[in-house]
């Protein structure tokens, strides 16, 4: 092996470690009986991946590529490795004690798939070449399709897997078609080279078609309107630990790729795509919030709310790079959103998993009086919901919104800012309705049996809450770090 190859392998070790870990876990699971904790081992593997990411930071800071230019080794990759692996670790820890309640039988395979999906997500974000990107996307997606169906004894789980699979392959096809058109246009699949070709001449119609097809595939993954239809059904049907994982990891990875595609690859065509992004943001925020208003199931409501949050994030795509604050705004929002989502879905998991067979287990009536029957979960859920709504003391959510809207304002999108703030006012209603259920309504029946939370779940929920307060009240250090990351654009 050449020294270049070795250094490339060393630099991308976060991905290698998780891949190897996943394979070893698979072997171990096949050849040993139960009696050891697969979840614990996969958490350790993810932790090792995070450590590797932290150790290789200096290599990423300069900004280069690895493996003949197919992988971006830059600050953005580094940040997203950390975010994706961190999100995966938290979602493993928050869900590990409740997997059997959620009817996930093949625990070993489940964690193998989860680790592989994480690797796929990392590769998806870091790819500097479109075929590599597609492989990353498919690795992530295929693993996820199976994870959604992990509770194979439950109809809704199987249904969600099938739905996700069908629509997901459809969107992958769009993405692939877009890639082939771009290849035809520029005779290259490398993002920097395509960007160069696109920048050199005035964009032709084919470039827009390629862009449009690519956008369909990516918008599907971040669940932005009008490519959101799968999200409520899949979020609702999948076992809740998978939902936690999907909501934070997949969304983060897809947003990262959107950043690369929109800002790096199509940066020169800003005027061409800004209208499309404007409408996607507008529709995602508005429809997401309006549809969330009429949900009774909490998982479904949070799914629609995640569509709305995808809309808020999309707003900041219109403020490219660090100059307008769009870059750090999106990254900050992702961090805040991951904490809020893991937290809120985590609470839903804790409350509903003992009745996982019941399709109405996450109905809002389940939460009646939760604030008194389980004050710990109640107070955490209240904080997560306030943060999602952007009301202090949920400071992280508020600041995320302010960063995003400020970036849009600085780039002259006043209309979208007004739409955005009005949307966040609408969203207050459905988030607060859950607080109403938890604190203001006396339960008619006996309060729901939550069962012991276990150390890992309790500590992760507390960690998310503390994280929301910490990055919300003292955001300066994180924000400055994210600004440095965003300088890579």
């Amino acid at each position, binding site marked *: 092996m050449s020294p270049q190859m070795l250094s490339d392998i060393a630099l991308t070790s976060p991905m290698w470690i998780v891949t190897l870990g996943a394979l070893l876990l698979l072997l171990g699971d096949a050849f040993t009986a139960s009696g050891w904790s697969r979840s614990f081992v996969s958490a350790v593997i993810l932790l090792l991946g995070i450590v590797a990411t932290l150790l290789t930071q200096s290599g990423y800071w300069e900004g280069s590529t690895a493996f003949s230019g197919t992988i971006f080794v830059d600050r953005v990759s580094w940040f997203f490795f950390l975010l994706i692996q961190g999100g995966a670790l938290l979602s493993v820890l928050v869900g590990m004690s409740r997997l059997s309640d959620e009817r996930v039988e093949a625990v070993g395979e489940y964690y193998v798939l989860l680790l592989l999906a994480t690797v796929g997500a990392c590769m998806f974000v870091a790819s500097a070449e479109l075929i590599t990107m597609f492989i990353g996307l498919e690795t992530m997606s295929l693993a996820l399709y199976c994870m959604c169906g992990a509770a194979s004894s439950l109809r809704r789980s199987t249904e969600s897997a099938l739905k996700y699979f069908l629509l997901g392959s459809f969107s992958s096809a769009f993405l692939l078609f877009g890639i082939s058109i771009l290849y035809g246009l520029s005779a290259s699949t490398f993002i920097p080279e395509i960007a160069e070709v696109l920048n050199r001449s005035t964009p032709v119609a084919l470039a827009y078609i390629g862009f449009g097809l690519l956008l369909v595939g990516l918008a599907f993954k971040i669940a932005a309107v009008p490519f959101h239809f799968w999200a409520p059904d899949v979020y609702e049907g999948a076992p809740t630990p998978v939902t936690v994982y999907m909501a934070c990891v997949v969304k983060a990875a897809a947003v990262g790729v959107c950043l690369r595609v929109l800002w790096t690859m199509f*940066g*020169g065509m*800003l005027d061409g795509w800004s209208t499309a992004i404007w409408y996607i943001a507008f529709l995602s925020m508005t429809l997401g919030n309006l549809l969330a208003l009429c949900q009774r199931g909490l998982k479904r409501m949070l799914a629609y709310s995640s569509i709305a949050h995808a809309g808020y994030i999309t707003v900041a795509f219109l403020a*490219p*790079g660090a*100059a*307008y604050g769009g870059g750090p705004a999106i990254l900050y929002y992702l961090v805040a959103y991951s904490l809020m989502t893991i937290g809120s879905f985590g609470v839903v998991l804790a409350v509903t998993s003992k009745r996982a067979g019941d399709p109405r287990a996450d109905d809002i009536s389940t939460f009646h009086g939760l604030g008194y029957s389980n004050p710990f979960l109640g107070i955490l859920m209240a904080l997560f919901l*306030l943060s999602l709504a952007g*009301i*202090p*003391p949920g*400071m992280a959510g*508020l600041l995320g919104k*302010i960063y995003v*809207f*400020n970036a849009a*304002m*600085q*780039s*002259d999108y*006043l209309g979208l*800012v*007004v739409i955005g*703030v*009005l949307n*966040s*006012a609408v969203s*207050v*209603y459905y988030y*607060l*309705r859950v*607080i*109403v259920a938890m*604190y*203001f*309504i006396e339960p008619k029946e006996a309060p729901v049996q939550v069962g012991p939370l276990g150390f890992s779940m309790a500590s992760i929920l507390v960690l998310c809450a503390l994280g929301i307060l910490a990055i919300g009240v003292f*955001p*300066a250090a994180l*924000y*400055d770090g994210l*600004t440095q990351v965003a300088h890579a654009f």
Partner: protein
Amino acid sequence: MHSSWNLLSWLIFTPLIGAVLLYLIPLFHPSVDRHGSKARWFSLAVAVLTFAISVCALASFEVNGSMQLVERAAWIPSFGISYAVGVDGISLALILLTTVLMPVVLLASYSVHSKVRAYLFHMLLLETAMLGTLAALDVFLFYVFWELMLAPMYFIIGIWGGTRRIYATLKFVLYTVFGSVLMLAAILYVVWAYAQQTGEMSFLLSDLLARTELSFKEEVWLFAAFALAFGIKVPIFPFHTWLPDAHVEAPTGGSVILAGVLLKMGIYGFIRFGFPLFPRGAELFIPVLCGLAVIGIVYGALVAWVQTDIKKLVAYSSVSHLGYCVLGLVALNTVATTGSVYQLLNHGISTGALFLLVGVLYDRRHTRDVAEYGGLAAKVPVFAFLFLVFTLSSIALPLTNGFIGEFLILTGSYVTFPFYTTVALLGVILGAVYMLTLYMKTMFGQLDQAKNGSLTDVSAREVATFLPLLILVFWMGLYPQPILRRLEPAVDTFLSDVKARSQMLEEREMGFMAQMRPQLIRAQEGAVPGHGIVQRTSLKESNL
């Protein structure tokens, strides 16, 4: 004047520390502290301590119109957001009102029997939010504290409120949020304009006031957004409909704080932010605000007159009374505006006390229906005396505090709006009518309801809650000078700031037009595009 003691920070965060300690110290856990009496005493001590700190702030306050006890530290430097607090006469007066009312409310919290610790926690958190709102000199900090007032009040009404509490509390929150998000968009717009003109971002009020140039059209829209947020909070007719619901459903303490302090934030917001930032936009809206204020005064009074629920009656009287404050504010002269701020204090005291009195009755009889009472004066003389005093204060009888405020407002605003003020006088008469009718129906006549026969008079603890307010009613009515002396310079500064900024903006815009005219004409002819447009697009392109 820089404070080396961080007096204002201690003032703002002492209640928060107390609130957190309520949950950290195991002594206050419901299993140990069965009836919450230890928690009550503790939070009362915290509130009294906060009051003591505010008195220290008063003692170190010099009588002039400047911002004092200013503290400033970078909070989010990359956005020019800082933690900046300070007080002038107006905010100090409202801060003192808050710190006086809070111990009173906590003393009155004995009517709360369930989840005592959580109630006290929300009250103390609310106090931090209110004090922060009143002291903030950074627009972002102001917004955060402004929004922080929502959550505790939402819980207070929602958990300890009456039967329709969920409807009332959601209505309260949604109305307020709807207004404040548009204010957020306006804040971001102002900061954007500032960044365009200076090349850096700042949320500091003094920076924005000194260096943001806005066109007249921008000012109108921005003021409208701020006015909506503040107008809903005041509440100005027709945005008042959340108020009666919230008041009726809120527990006594919640009502007192809502009427006593939260409603004042709207007027305060106009004074601190709305008028100084957008003076010409404000000027355009003055006739509208004035008209709505007068409608509110008369309408509120008329609706109060026909109420059968005592609490609802007092709530509608708030709509009427706050109308006077708006009227005095928009008159924009020293007398009327000082009167307006003075009336804010009065309303906090008298209406707060009236809600407490209704609470005392409700605790004993569990009804607020006027028809259920009558002839109480003979049975509960001390209560009747207290009720009389605060009723008279509410209808602004001379020698009580209300008289000074209303007199100043009406004298001052008559100069500016003779017609509107004349109509508003109708509200004074109606105010006397509905309050005295209420007094007559409940206190005089025959003691005809059997259940009222067993009513007990106010207890020593209840007297203790009313005593500070009683003293303030007479003190502020007989010797208002110490307060007015501190308010007037601040009001003068406010008025001259508004005028100066209005002139500055006017001149800049005229100057800009004069300078731009040749270029604009050329632009229209197609030779050179407009200067401003070039600048913005080139900025956008250069960063790609």
